[in-house]
């Protein structure tokens, strides 16, 4: 019997190794995909990157593009990685910042859908729905506070620029002239370029093909990384949650961050806490800091994606990834740090959950309006008014 146990143990540890190798391979593919988007965008747009994204130069449109894209794909990591790739290809950082803010908002739809699973459970639904929407309201208030400040002062862009320069000294992301990512990422991208040129495609066609393939690859990679890490990291996530019990909000924020880094998905982290809150075992006040940690933890993907970018635009790719991190850290420090703003998302979530208990039409209206109708109306209005 002991032999069987040992056999099973060695089998599971070897299968774990295989899964880790697979994760490593997927991370490599993520870096390749980001480099593909950067290279493709550079080739397709030439020096016209700014003009191509002129439609999103209005910050409100940028936020909406980020929100809707993330709500449809249901992965902020995918959208932020694509944005990093586009910045690497020449998209101005200033245009990308509102999109990053929108990605934060769009990702909140996932845990809201998860909370709908409790719809027949009365009070349990109220608790689950408020635990899901507290994240929505936090991100919404974050946009309402920081987007105008960014438009007026560009403080996030400056913070990102300062941090990027601090990290790489104003040069590209090479360490003393040696870039360890470049030799790994460049060959497959060059091979694809040669392949497209070989079949007679011009720079524009080749660039568009690289962008489309890169986006598809990021989507597949992040989906599979998420699935694998969920299985591989569940034990570690449980240990982190056990350690955070009874230790207060700061510990909640740190554990939310740590679990999101481990599973590479903020929506997984924020969705996990929905049933915990729904059962009534955790209160909304205990869940709330945990979801804020998820906002910070999700920045790791964009930072990882930025390491794939080489050349003159590498600094900008790193800058937008650091803007993402700064935005989320500052958001937590300001909204959660100040006693008079801290509970606003909680009150808003409880109010909406109260309405949702009266009639589910409020839920449908909330999801439809916030994630789809309002964005379309705002974009139409901004186009008509020529903002």
């Amino acid at each position, binding site marked *: 019997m002991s032999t069987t146990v040992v056999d099973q143990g060695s089998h599971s540890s070897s299968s774990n190794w295989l899964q880790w190798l697979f994760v490593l391979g997927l991370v490599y593919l993520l870096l390749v995909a980001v480099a593909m988007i950067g290279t493709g965008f550079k080739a397709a747009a030439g020096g016209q990157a700014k003009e191509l994204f002129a439609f999103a130069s209005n910050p409100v449109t940028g936020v909406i593009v980020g929100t809707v894209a993330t709500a449809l794909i249901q992965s902020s990591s995918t959208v932020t990685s694509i944005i990093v790739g586009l910045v690497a290809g020449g998209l101005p950082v200033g245009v990308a910042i509102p999109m990053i803010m929108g990605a934060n908002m769009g990702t909140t739809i*996932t845990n809201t*859908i*998860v909370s*709908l*699973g409790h*719809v*027949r459970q009365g009070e349990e639904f109220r608790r689950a729905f408020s635990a899901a929407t507290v994240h929505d309201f936090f991100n919404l208030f974050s946009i309402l506070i920081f987007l105008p400040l960014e438009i007026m002062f560009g403080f996030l862009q400056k913070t990102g620029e300062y941090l990027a320069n601090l990290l790489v000294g104003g040069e590209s992301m090479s360490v003393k002239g040696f870039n360890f990512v470049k030799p790994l990422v460049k060959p497959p991208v060059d091979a694809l370029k040669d392949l497209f040129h070989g079949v007679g495609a011009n720079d524009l066609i080749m660039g568009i093909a690289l962008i489309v393939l890169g986006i598809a690859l990021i989507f597949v990679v992040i989906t599979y990384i998420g699935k694998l890490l*969920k299985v591989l990291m*569940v034990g570690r*996530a*449980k240990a982190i*949650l*056990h350690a955070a*019990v*009874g230790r207060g909000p700061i510990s909640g924020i740190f554990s939310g961050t740590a679990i999101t880094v481990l599973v590479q998905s903020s929506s*997984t982290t924020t*969705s*996990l806490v929905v*049933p*915990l809150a729904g*059962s009534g*075992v*955790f209160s909304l006040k205990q869940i709330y800091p945990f979801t804020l940690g998820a906002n910070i933890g999700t920045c790791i993907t964009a930072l990882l994606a930025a390491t794939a970018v080489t050349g003159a635009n590498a600094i900008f790719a790193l800058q937008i990834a650091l803007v993402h991190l700064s935005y989320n850290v500052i958001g937590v420090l300001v909204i959660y740090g100040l006693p008079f703003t801290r509970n606003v998302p909680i009150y808003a979530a409880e109010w909406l959950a109260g309405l949702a208990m009266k*009639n*589910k*039409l409020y*839920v*449908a209206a909330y999801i439809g309006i916030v994630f789809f109708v309002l964005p379309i109306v705002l974009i139409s209005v901004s186009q008509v008014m020529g903002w």
Partner: protein
Amino acid sequence: MSEFKKHSEALRGRIDDLEKTLANLKAELQAEEEREQHAAIDRLEEYLGDLDNKYAKLQDFWQVLREEVKQLFGDRSDKPGKDK
């Protein structure tokens, strides 16, 4: 010792006892809550597995929504009949 002092000391003693009892009850409640929280965390795999059923959740919600909308508009159209 005056009657007043005796009475106030007795009251202070009772307050101390109540405060101790309250503190014990609070600690007991916290321990109970934390025990439940640890038990819920132990079911994390179950919750993780459930995350993949988003389509089923939306379908279920849609059904509940339809029932509530039907009830809402059905009730309204019934009301004049009831009045008669």
